[in-house]
């Protein structure tokens, strides 16, 4: 062949000017639609989310371009989306190439580039997009994936439109190839096959081919134009809002809530949508309705009124009602309170702040921060909160801990342990052992503290406790929404810690761990905070904890339950597992573990709130524990431990016994049990807690 491979643009098409004329309304509709979205977000308050753009760009490439988060966990969904999105991106580039050739008059559509990219690659990606669409349709209307429950009509319309665009595209290409006997037709295999199939179906006459081609060409173009113009008014807008949300995502530690200037803020927390910042409102528009949050939400799983997907979509609907879904909307409503309008209080109080929704969201929507913002308003401005939560908050205010009716005092658990000393006596120590209220006041949980003290003593660590000088970190108050009380507690604790010059803090409670590590720096408290699983792992690695193999013999298999505030919030999944593995027991994993760990139900102040029978998250988790095949569930959080003990008791009752089917042990308890006798003998020695 002596000719350069190419094809004639606008072959068989007359009145080309019409495509440009039709372009105008399409572009106008698109621009107006996009502008309307910007208008919606501008109703929010300012927030800095364009700093550190290198990191933001990295996330953009990984999660928007590469769709890492989207593909992880659900491969079928990931496949469909990659095929569809990349198919359309490549086809869009193909159209741009035509534009460059036809309108900018830069001759690039020829030669190898024409054959490889403009013909072969476009065909392959176009076919891929059709396969992707087929998978998407199958998931919605055949397999009926449970998390895809919203907007099925709109989904059907959008998927059908895209299918029509793709199929007519191949029909047009096929007809051109057979009608012109395109010598390079085999470089467009899908088009060629389509053309031959049409010929086989009877469209053989040249004149017929021309007529059908011309009709389909215009049809293809019109549908494409309408579709593009419709994007900003549909869920397809996520093409732009999702990458925008990913780019402007929260780069702060996941466990840190934004502090609130209680003294100088007009509205405490969020009352109306306008009290949110613009990223919060962008989140509402960025939601793709994929339902991954719904699928992982523990509250939703047990039938509580919270569905994180609907939380976002209900607020989106309110935003549309108040600001308008179209730019020419005149009926701008007065801002209404969100609670009572689109979200019920019970929904708000069902959240355990477990962060599973935020972790699962492929487009970086921050559900939990919004829930806390809404709670802040309910608690601080309205004083509307469940009575049980109120009692916990009142307890923190009056007694420095949320446990109403606690029988113990903070110093009880070490009354007979001479090696546990208070900072007030020793002045300073290398490690401050931050005990936490749950551990100090609950008789069952006190064993965690005793075990941990024994471990640190055995390893010759120089440690001390605060005794009565310790108070609640404020975490429950903060997650319930009382930022005012939280700040008081934080400032008081930081003053105590700084007065002693504390540098390193060890704690067995992931809630204390998270708050002191990620939230106290905002108030001037900067410490090296170590979770006990991390400390024990290091001590074991350094050979400072002599274990006696076989001491845990009755526990053949142990399963590990990930605490949300250690795992998802602080990415610590491996340290506790390394410790379990060092104990000479077989570790079995539950289906929902690590990033997908299922909450025990205690977070976000839920520990103190009433649970309707049959809708208890801890029982749901305990059932999973009971079927894991393990003799013990290992926890690394006192709340998880208490919730598992309680849940497993219910499971026992369900099974008609009084004996819990699986034992619950904190990591420290397992390690203390496995310590060699000689090491344990140190327990009696007085004053031996000096640094090694």
């Amino acid at each position, binding site marked *: 062949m002596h000719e350069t491979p190419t094809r004639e643009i606008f072959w068989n098409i007359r009145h080309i000017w019409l495509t440009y004329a039709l372009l105008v309304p399409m572009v106008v509709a698109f621009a107006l639609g996009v502008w309307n979205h910007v208008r919606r977000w501008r109703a929010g308050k300012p927030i800095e989310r364009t700093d550190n753009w290198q990191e933001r760009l990295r996330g953009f490439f990984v999660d928007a371009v590469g769709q890492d988060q989207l593909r992880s966990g659900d491969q079928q969904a990931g496949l469909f989306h990659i095929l569809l999105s990349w198919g359309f991106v490549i086809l869009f580039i193909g159209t741009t190439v035509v534009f460059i050739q036809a309108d900018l008059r830069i001759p690039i559509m020829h030669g190898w580039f024409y054959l490889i990219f403009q013909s072969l690659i476009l065909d392959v990606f176009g076919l891929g997009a059709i396969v992707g669409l087929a998978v998407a349709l199958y998931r919605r209307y055949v397999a009926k994936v449970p998390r895809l429950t919203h907007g099925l009509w709109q989904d059907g319309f959008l998927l059908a439109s895209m299918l029509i665009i793709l199929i007519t595209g191949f029909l047009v290409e096929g007809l051109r190839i057979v009608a012109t006997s395109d010598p390079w037709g085999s470089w467009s295999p899908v088009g060629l096959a389509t053309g031959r199939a049409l010929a086989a179906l009877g469209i053989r006459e040249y004149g017929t081919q021309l007529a059908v081609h011309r009709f389909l060409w215009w049809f293809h173009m019109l549908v494409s134009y309408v579709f593009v113009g419709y994007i900003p008014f549909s869920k397809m807008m996520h093409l732009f809002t999702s990458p925008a949300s990913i780019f402007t995502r929260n780069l702060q530690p996941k466990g840190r809530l934004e502090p609130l200037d209680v003294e100088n803020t007009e509205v405490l927390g969020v009352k109306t949508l306008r009290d949110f910042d613009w990223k919060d409102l962008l989140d509402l528009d960025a939601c793709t309705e994929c339902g991954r949050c719904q699928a992982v939400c523990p509250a939703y799983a047990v039938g509580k009124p919270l569905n994180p997907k609907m939380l976002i979509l209900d607020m989106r609907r309110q935003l549309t009602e108040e600001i308008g879904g179209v730019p020419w909307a005149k009926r701008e409503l007065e801002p209404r309170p969100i609670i009572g309008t689109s979200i019920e209080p019970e929904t708000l109080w069902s959240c355990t702040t477990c962060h599973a929704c935020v972790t699962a969201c492929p487009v970086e929507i921050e559900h939990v921060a919004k829930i806390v913002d809404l709670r802040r308003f309910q608690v*601080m401005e309205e004083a509307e909160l469940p009575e049980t939560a*109120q009692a916990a908050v009142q307890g923190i205010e009056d007694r420095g801990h949320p446990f109403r009716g606690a029988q113990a*005092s903070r110093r009880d658990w070490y009354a007979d342990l001479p090696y546990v000393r208070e900072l007030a006596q020793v002045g300073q120590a290398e490690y401050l052992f931050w005990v936490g209220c749950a551990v100090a006041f609950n008789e069952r949980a006190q064993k965690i503290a005793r075990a941990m003290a024994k471990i640190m003593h055995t390893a010759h660590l120089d440690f001390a406790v605060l005794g009565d000088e310790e108070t609640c970190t404020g975490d429950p108050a903060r997650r319930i929404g009382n930022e005012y009380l939280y700040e008081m507690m934080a400032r008081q604790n930081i003053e105590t810690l700084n007065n002693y010059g504390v540098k390193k803090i060890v704690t067995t409670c992931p809630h204390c761990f998270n708050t002191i590590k990620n939230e106290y720096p905002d108030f001037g408290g900067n410490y090296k905070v170590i979770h006990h699983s991390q400390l024990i792992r290091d001590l074991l690695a350094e050979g400072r904890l002599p274990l006696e193999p076989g001491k845990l013999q009755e526990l053949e298999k142990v399963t590990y339950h990930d605490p949300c505030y250690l795992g998802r919030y602080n990415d610590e999944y491996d340290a506790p597992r390394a410790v379990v593995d060092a104990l000479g027991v077989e570790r079995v994993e539950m289906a929902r573990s690590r990033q997908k760990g299922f909450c025990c139900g205690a977070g976000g102040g839920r520990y103190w709130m009433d649970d309707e029978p049959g809708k208890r998250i801890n029982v749901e988790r305990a059932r999973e524990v009971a079927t894991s095949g393990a003799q013990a569930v290992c926890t690394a959080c006192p709340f998880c431990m208490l919730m598992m003990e309680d849940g497993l008791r219910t499971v026992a009752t369900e099974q008609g016994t009084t004996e819990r089917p699986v034992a619950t042990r904190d990591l420290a308890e397992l390690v203390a049990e496995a310590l060699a006798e000689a090491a344990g003998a140190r327990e009696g020695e007085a004053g031996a807690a000096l640094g090694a």
Partner: protein
Amino acid sequence: MHIAVCIKQILDPEISPRAFKIDPVRKAADPGTASLVIGPFDLNALEVAIQLKERHGGQVTALTLGSDKAKEALRRALAMGADQAVLIDETQVSAKEPSVTARVLAAAIRKLDPVDLVLTGRQSGEWDFGQVGALLAEELGMPFVPFVPRLDVAGNGLRLEREADGGVVVVEAPRPCVASVTNANDNVPRLPKVKDIMMANRKPITVYGPGELGLGAAEVGDEANRLEVLDLFIPEVKSECEFIEGEDGAEKGANLARKLVERKVI
């Protein structure tokens, strides 16, 4: 309508029983690490007063006899919805018995704008005498209704419910009168809004200093107290645990019933 509510700041009654100690020299509770709170029934009284104000308008004045620390209790009352707060400095007052407390409070109430109603908790949260309300009515020459969970305006007077053994007595009283408030589901003290807490910190507190009420040592000093605490101790509580024998549930049930009857529990 002007309602005066007498409140008392006490050691937190909800500290753990194991942490509760008695100072044998002072013959009083050892504060230890316990925080100071408003007596629980006094909070009910505040709630009743604020609800009445919300229904019929008027103002609520919270009064307390105490040290400078008691200002915290008054701030809480203001945050809940009281309009004024009065602290009576306890420096030259020796209120070891309720009659002295009542005398001091009565003197302070006489200095206020005329009151329509005086409320107290049915008893303080620590000593549990339950006499201040009645003695206050005597001092002020007003009628007294004890154990009132709820009340409302009725004509020129008040309609009050009084809890009695196994029933409720409904009475009418003229204004002004004194009532002591007991707890009920509809007078659970409200949680103050954070905005109100911050506002309360800026409101003034009237302080009646020593001698400002015109009461001398003979009326409120040590010699005014005729009551003396001889001893104060924590009773030892013994508990026994007994497992009910029996082959099955029915037999265990029967045995349990028999034991309960034997011990005259049922």
